[in-house]
């Protein structure tokens, strides 16, 4: 398998602060796999992501993303990646369709091609009905989906997603997971940060635990599960989430997704 992301000793020190925000992080990701960065608040997840996406310049170490060096070939990296930030970074005033066309044009598509790509993505993310409304009026789940759609305009080889489902209800969360899985099946590599272990369990192939900016533990999800001990078989009473999903499952909560 092709390696699409490789980081060695990635480090970020912010001026005036004693401890490094990210301190010598090594990462490796092959195409068609999902890497989850886990860790408490302030562990360095977002800073790592910002360095890999060329938004923040590392103070040490190196990384290649989609075949290009993040330090010396920033614009080549930016051409081949998609970024979904913690907050849906969209023009609130413009409609969903207008946002897709705008970012498509900025990615170098001709007007007609940008409109066509927008139409495809609106169908793919089930946003056709809401396409003409300002994004500012979208629900949380819809915002995440249009945000993800914008990140996919250029068919990125590596997709970076920062806490994709924070603040989403369980149905919207699962719908976003499905969207991510679909991309991965087509060969896209995904790097995601999350606070929810359940999310990592559901999506990740590889897991990196960060603590105080360093890698505390890393491995494939199967290796890490072995570390956690022998499988326990326990019967568990249905949780509130199970109940929630039967009540509002995808078939009945179309508008919430």
């Amino acid at each position, binding site marked *: 398998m092709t390696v699409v992301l490789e980081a060695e000793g990635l480090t970020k020190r912010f001026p005036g602060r004693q401890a490094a925000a990210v301190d010598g992080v090594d990462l490796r990701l092959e195409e068609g796999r999902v890497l989850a960065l886990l860790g408490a608040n302030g562990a360095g997840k977002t800073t790592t992501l910002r360095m890999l996406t060329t938004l923040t310049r590392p103070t040490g170490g190196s990384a290649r993303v989609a075949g290009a060096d993040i330090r010396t070939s920033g614009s*080549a990296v930016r051409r081949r990646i998609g970024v979904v930030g*913690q907050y849906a*970074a969209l*023009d609130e*005033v413009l409609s969903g369709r207008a946002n897709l066309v705008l*970012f498509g044009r900025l990615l170098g598509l001709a007007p007609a091609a940008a409109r066509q790509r927008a139409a495809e993505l609106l169908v793919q993310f089930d946003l056709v009905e809401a396409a003409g409304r300002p994004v500012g009026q979208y629900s949380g789940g819809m915002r995440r989906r249009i945000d993800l759609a*914008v990140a996919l305009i250029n068919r990125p080889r590596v997709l970076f997603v920062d806490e994709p489902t924070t603040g989403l209800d369980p149905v919207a969360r699962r719908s976003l997971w499905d969207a991510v899985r679909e991309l991965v099946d087509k060969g896209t590599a995904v790097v995601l940060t999350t606070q929810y272990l359940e999310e990592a369990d559901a999506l990740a192939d590889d897991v990196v635990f960060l603590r105080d900016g360093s890698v505390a533990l890393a491995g494939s999800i199967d290796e890490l599960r072995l570390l956690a001990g022998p499988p326990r078989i326990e019967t568990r009473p249905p949780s509130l989430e199970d109940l929630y999903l039967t009540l509002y499952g995808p078939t009945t909560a179309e508008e919430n997704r």
Partner: protein
Amino acid sequence: MTRAITQSIVLAGRTFGHWRAQPVPFLVNLLFPTLVLLMMGGLLGGAIAGDLPTYFWYAVPGVLAVAMLFGLEGTMLAITTDAKNAITDRLRSLPISGAAVPAGRCLADMAASLLALATTCTAGLLMGWRPGSWTGLVEAALVLLAFRFALLWLGLFAGLRATSPEVVVAVQILVWPISMLSSVFVDPATMPRWLGAVAEWNPLSAAANAVRELTGSPTFTSTTWAGQHAVMLSLVTSGVVTAVFAPLAVRAYRNLDA
């Protein structure tokens, strides 16, 4: 290069899209200088100059200069709102030219100010103001747009350095004392001597006096060097502000990756 130009135009088009999507704030901004003209002229003009027609001849060039100053808030608000909504980061994560974002802002804001200029001029003409010559009016417009261009870079720099859109509120308030402490609405000679001197050297006064001079509108009889060389002073001030703040704004934008 052509790509960077296309990207700038696409980004400027984003602002034009805002005007279409939200015509009310756009129209309020466009007509606000006219409102100021009617307010100052209609309500206070009689008290200041004795009669309204005379006062409008003073006030129209002044309000045209103030209309450019109002643009500063627009630039800052756009920059700080984009930063808050993480649009700035998304634009930086795209493979676009680093110059495209400021250039797009420049195109959109200069277009907005040109429209404000045209609207306020029209209002002035309706109030009975008549520029001496059309070429003079065009020259005056160029001086004003140079002033606005300088304010654009100041706004870009301040907007990039501002921590939140709330900072813009401070600017929106400060615009008023700055406008009052100038020759825009009244003759600085009527102010206490030291305040009058400050008002004479306010760049806003230079812009207002330059428009008066170029359009053959009456000027407050100024005896100071600043009052007598308004056109040159205004152009030099705009040039210096641009020369200082354009590099600072570009550096502030580049330093976002620190």
